[in-house]
């Protein structure tokens, strides 16, 4: 994550315990936590019926995970993240006074165990590749055209604007929309396009 702002090695008052720097925590988050998103969404959906809350809840789990890791790096990411999700669900259910026996699925029942063998790297790479292709194909046409020109042809805003016959700020907006939607589609293949301004 070279482009991510790094605070370097921080003193204890910033809360980076056990000698972890901000960039190390960020790298851990990207490597270990982000790939869990699809499973996390499924878990949350299973326990929380209001679909419109899921994105926010997922974000909340991520925030708690990254904050928690700053204090102490967990041994295994997956059980750590899912126990956060479980606690969040319990909190929410309690706060909304929803009584449901099945709402919070047992982590074991959901296939979350601590000692899972690492998946074959090349297999993951291939799956990522397919997910990327699928995500790209689902983008609205203009956003996709802009993204492809930027990523594949390496064109600047200005060049894309000329090719598409649009103003530069419009192209910037298409690209930003494309980045946001690609992120959603890549992580959750049931995601819908969010408001495109």
């Amino acid at each position, binding site marked *: *994550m070279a*482009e*991510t*702002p790094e605070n370097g090695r921080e003193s204890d008052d910033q809360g980076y315990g056990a000698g972890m720097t901000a960039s190390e925590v*960020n790298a851990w*988050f*990207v490597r270990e936590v*982000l790939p869990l*998103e699809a499973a996390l969404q499924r878990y949350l959906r299973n326990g929380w019926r209001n679909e419109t809350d899921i*994105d*926010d809840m*997922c*974000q*909340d789990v*991520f*925030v*708690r995970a*990254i*904050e928690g890791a700053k204090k102490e790096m967990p041994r295994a990411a997956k059980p750590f993240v899912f126990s*956060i999700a479980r*606690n969040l669900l319990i909190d929410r259910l309690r706060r909304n006074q929803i009584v449901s026996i099945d709402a919070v699925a047992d982590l074991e029942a959901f296939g979350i165990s601590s000692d899972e063998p690492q998946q074959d790297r090349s297999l993951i790479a*291939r799956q*990522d*590749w*397919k997910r*990327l*292709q*699928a*995500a*790209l*194909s*689902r983008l609205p046409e203009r956003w*996709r055209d802009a*993204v*492809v020109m*930027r*990523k*594949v*042809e*390496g*064109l*600047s*805003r*200005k060049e894309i604007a000329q*090719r*598409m*016959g649009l103003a530069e700020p419009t192209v*910037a907006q298409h690209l*930003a*929309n*494309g*980045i*946001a939607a*690609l*992120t*959603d589609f*890549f*992580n959750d293949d049931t995601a819908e396009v*969010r*408001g495109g301004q």
Partner: protein
Amino acid sequence: MSNPNEELRWDKNSREIQARAAVWIEERESDDWSDVRQKEFDAWIVASPAHLVALLRAETVWKHADRLRALSGSGPMKPSRAGASKRSATFLKIAAAFAFVSLASAGAVAFFQGPKTQIYSTTIGGREMLTLDDGSKIELNTNTTVRVAYEGGQRNVWLDKGEAYFNVVHDVARPFTVTLGSRRVTDLGTKFLVRRDQDHIQVALIEGKARFDAALDPNSSQQTILRPGDTVTATAESVSFKREPSQSLSSQLSWRHGMLVFDHTTLAAVADEYNRYNHTKIVIADTQARHLTISGTLPATDLGAFTRLATKFFNLRVQRREGEIVIAH
């Protein structure tokens, strides 16, 4: 872990935060990026861990997308062909009597055949988009010919050769059909891809629903309703169906952005695919080399990307001759 007030603060905002993160990522890649913006960006990141999460999440996917270019050589490519990008440059209106069909492109050739029929063609390496007056769109791939006849209550298209992607505005009152020799596809609210090669045709349903008729005789019972992910392959003698998750068909549409997607594809098949798009033909002279497989995305009209791959990854020898590139050990 975090206090409830904090949670509430982010609760309603995950969409906005993500949209903001995407704007930062885009802007950071632009020429307008300045020290001032960098400082504002840093401040935004520090303001909330939710901002950092959103940024890391979007940035990770955006970096993944670099792989779209991974095999196309170093540095930014030159736009390989005018193709679809020139859409806005020229707008040819066809004669007023036939104004229901407009062709928003310089490259395709249109001429009349009979009073109500129009022909559109692309040459080798060409790619064009037609927008019909009902809003339906047809994207023509390389070396493709379609005939379009909108007449009365009928919208009829014939694919005479090549490949086209149809995005049809459904109208129950005006059926939309695509005829390929003795087979026909009828729109039932659809996006679909149709390809006609010398000895076989292929229809892939991307979205919605369509009916496939294995024979043109309306009384024939050889009808099938296609669902997303369905692919029909038909030769003169046989018809076969295959069903996949509809997302896996997306790689077949990559030509719409000028790219070819290969997934464990043999070099022989890669060469065939390239040869659809280029006048210079690739010949794989070595039998063993024909069976090597690759996965990745390559620009359809950049033969250099293919030859680099052959030399760099497979240590093959590349000979350029008149009108062809011969690959050998």
